[in-house]
């Protein structure tokens, strides 16, 4: 028993170390990217609508520490980050960590809501298409899914708003209410953005489900299950789906990861104050510390999601588990 605890600890330790190194690499990459990109935060800060004087620019720059050599800026940042101090926003000195901590859960919530909707729609749709391969039903489902893939999220979102908010007035057009303040309102405002995101993702999940299901449906053991007298539904949901799950889980994981920094359009469109908005705003303003902080948060989430997905792989397929141990 002790040995297994030690083994587990070792494993966790290794994963943590890997994650740490990954984050370090990402941090370095972002740092380089931000400095290679054209753009100057100070000009944006001071010159929004007017001509700042060169002296004001210089003074601002030195106050923000941007006049230091890039390398020393990097190491200062890194050193602080190692102490969990991610600096302050260039624009207003507001701590990056507070920004990230307030926006991160909102993006997470939106992403999970979307992915749950997408899975609930996509997986059954894909199964239905696979079971009737080549039939009219398959064609119709495929077409619906395709439209889901090729209609951009902002068009879908706009249509949802036009219909559900402006026309019917059922749901708010945009905004965010803190769950602690009014939970009902909170979820009402979550509905449309989550739907808008979810539909498109559902389409991809459906496609992958269909293909993966077909792969498994051709296997001999399915026939053996039928011979046992198992109901078709149970065969599909319990055995075939689980055998087919790895590619599906992969694509869901990918999408969830993408959503971490990729809900920009939807967040903007529904005024959902999440991490993506923060990141894009920070990138646009060349707010380096904020970009760094938001990116690291996204990357960390990403790593978590990946670990989860890999864990799921081995739970789903014992043969993969064997390789790992």
């Amino acid at each position, binding site marked *: 028993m002790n040995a297994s605890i030690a083994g587990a600890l070792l494993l966790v330790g290794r994963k943590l170390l890997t994650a740490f190194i990954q984050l370090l690499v990402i941090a370095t990459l972002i740092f380089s*990217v931000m400095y290679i990109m054209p753009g100057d935060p100070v000009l944006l800060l001071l010159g929004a609508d007017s001509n700042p004087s060169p002296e004001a620019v210089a003074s601002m720059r030195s106050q923000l520490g941007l006049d230091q050599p890039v390398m020393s800026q990097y190491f200062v940042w890194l050193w602080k980050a190692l102490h969990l101090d991610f600096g302050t926003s260039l624009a207003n000195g507001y701590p990056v960590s507070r920004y990230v901590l307030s926006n991160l859960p909102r993006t997470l919530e939106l992403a999970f809501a979307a992915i749950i909707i997408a899975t609930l729609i996509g997986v059954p749709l894909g199964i239905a298409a696979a079971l009737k391969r080549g039939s009219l039903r398959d064609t119709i489902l*495929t*077409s619906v899914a395709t439209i889901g893939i090729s209609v951009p999220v902002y068009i879908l979102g706009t249509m949802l708003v036009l219909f559900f908010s402006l026309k019917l007035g059922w749901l708010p057009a945009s905004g965010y209410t803190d769950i602690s303040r009014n939970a009902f309102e909170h979820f009402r405002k979550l509905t449309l953005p989550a739907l808008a995101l979810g539909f498109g993702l559902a389409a991809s999940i459906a496609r*992958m489900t269909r*293909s993966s299901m077909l792969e498994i449906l051709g296997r001999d053991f399915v026939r053996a299950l039928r011979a046992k007298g198992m109901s078709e539904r149970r065969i599909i949901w319990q055995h075939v789906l689980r055998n087919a799950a*790895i590619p599906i889980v992969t694509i869901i994981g*990918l999408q969830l*990861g993408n959503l971490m920094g990729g809900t920009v359009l939807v967040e903007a469109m529904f005024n959902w104050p999440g991490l993506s908005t923060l990141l894009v705003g920070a990138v646009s303003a060349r707010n380096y510390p904020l970009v760094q902080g938001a990116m690291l948060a996204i990357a960390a989430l990403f790593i978590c999601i990946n670990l989860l997905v890999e864990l799921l792989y081995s739970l789903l397929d014992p043969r993969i588990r064997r390789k790992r141990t």
Partner: protein
Amino acid sequence: MTSRTLGVARSQPAFVASLAVLAIVLLMAIFGGWLAPHDPFMLNPQAVNQSSSASHWLGTDEFGRDLLSRLLIGIRPTLMVALGATVIAAVFGSLLGIAGAYGRSWLSFLIMRAVDIMLSFPPILLALLAVGFWESGVLSLTVVIGVLYIPHFARVAHSATLQVARQEFMEAEHAMGASVRRVVFTAILPNILSPLVVQATLTVAAAILLESGLSFLGLGIVPPEPSWGQMIGTARGYLGQNPMYVIWPSLLLALTVLAINVVGDRLRDILDPRLREE
């Protein structure tokens, strides 16, 4: 031969229709410029955002340019970006993913962690990096979008390979002394092709849409050249006044992607011998 073709046409109407759509799209990509009824770059401030009319069949855009003409010449860059990016992503991504699942443990560790890093790097940053280095245009757009999707393919290929690598015929290949190349190309690839085909069809659509998403960073097709993605992106702002503006390119895009999907599905089924004879 011909009777068989006819047979296919009868039993697979969707497939045949899709092939036809793709053929038309390809032809339009080649000859679109000549087919265009109007000069696609001619501004007409007196006729902006018009709906269908006798002279402009599909209406006009916010500059009064003929939508049909622009859709026609917009195919080429759209296809080039979408297909080019998909090819780049598919080739490099799949190979990386396979190596990540089948290669030596240190190699697969490196590859998969690198893939994770790439994945956690939001597209916008990579795009900005590209803007810093290259002129915007079809080529850089293709490369950037292609690179963006490499890790996606890698992940899909990786997971599928993990599954395949555990099957007994891989042991048989191994026992025969098959070279890595052979294992990859004859044992693994054909068996993981179906998720890859699906991923590819998804990528085609995503690439076209991403193109419009990246254009605000200045990485799009450089105006006044049109592309479908860019048209859809712009049209979003005019949903209220000129709904047709967004509907036409979206419809064409959906139709093309649908055709690609149907062909992709069919390809996937053809590649699966167990499904072929039905």
